[in-house]
């Protein structure tokens, strides 16, 4: 079972991918609090390598719309019924001239566990 989170960056902005080009860059990261479910894996999209005027080398970034897929497992012990799972998406966006502070966005997803 999987959930798709669609993010849309405003035109002119990029954010670092989950694997940025340098250690000092803040990566995009989706972190779930998924109980009673278990996260089987988070699949980030393939980043673009873009060159900006402020960087000597291309940066690993996302622009525009992109999807992050999360695969879940339902443990046998998971109680039947409604539940809410949540996540935090941390990202840091820049234009070609300036950067905004890192930001964390809360995500909540209602689910229902059925037999």
């Amino acid at each position, binding site marked *: 079972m999987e959930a798709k*989170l669609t993010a849309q960056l405003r035109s002119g*902005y990029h954010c670092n991918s989950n694997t940025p080009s340098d250690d000092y860059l803040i990566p995009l990261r989706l972190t779930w609090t998924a109980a009673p479910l278990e996260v089987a894996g988070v699949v980030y999209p393939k980043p673009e390598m873009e060159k900006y005027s402020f*960087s000597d080398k291309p940066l690993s970034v996302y622009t525009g719309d992109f999807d992050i897929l999360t695969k879940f497992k339902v443990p046998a012990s998971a109680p*039947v019924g409604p539940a809410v799972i949540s996540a935090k998406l941390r990202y840091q966006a820049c234009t070609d*001239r300036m950067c905004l*502070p890192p930001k964390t966005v809360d995500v909540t997803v209602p689910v229902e566990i*059925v037999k």
Partner: protein
Amino acid sequence: MTKLIFRSAAVFLALGGIVFTGCSRVSSPRTTVKADKDRHQAPDFALKDVDGKTVKLSDLRGDVVLLNFWATWCSPCQIEIPWFVDFQQQYKDRKFAVVGVSLDDDGWTSVKPYLEKRKINYRVVVGTEETSQLYGGIDALPTTFLIDRSGRIAQVHTGLVSKSEYQDEIVKLLDSKDAGSAPEPVTSSRLVSAGSPALLFAR
């Protein structure tokens, strides 16, 4: 067998800055410093440098000050920092000082190794949310203020500008007849940003 039903299988988020609407905050090319009548007192602060010594902005009254808000994760900031090192060296005998204010959330944990790696010859402090709010709320980095000898803000740049633009403005302020005067009679000073650095005013 248990199954999972997502009430909403896809979650949509809109990311990215919504800061820059309406008027652009980008400095126009070849801008000059503000006229005397348009300059307002730079809010004072006292923050510690990497050696634990206090850097108080008002102690630099009489100097031309380049006050740079930056962070280790800000790539455009990395371009400017070597320029500021050059300026500090070039103008150190003309009563000029660069002060870097890092807005890294984890403070010296990130900033100290950064400073050790680079030969930064000016004072760097770690700023707080309060520092940011004193200057109208620093929405984007780099944001750099040029402060005249009387402690007044003569120019603000949000985002990367050219080295020559900074240099022109610094020289204008260094060459100015302003020898540094007593501060304006205000008991407190806080800049209010109306979305554009050109509209900063003290209250």
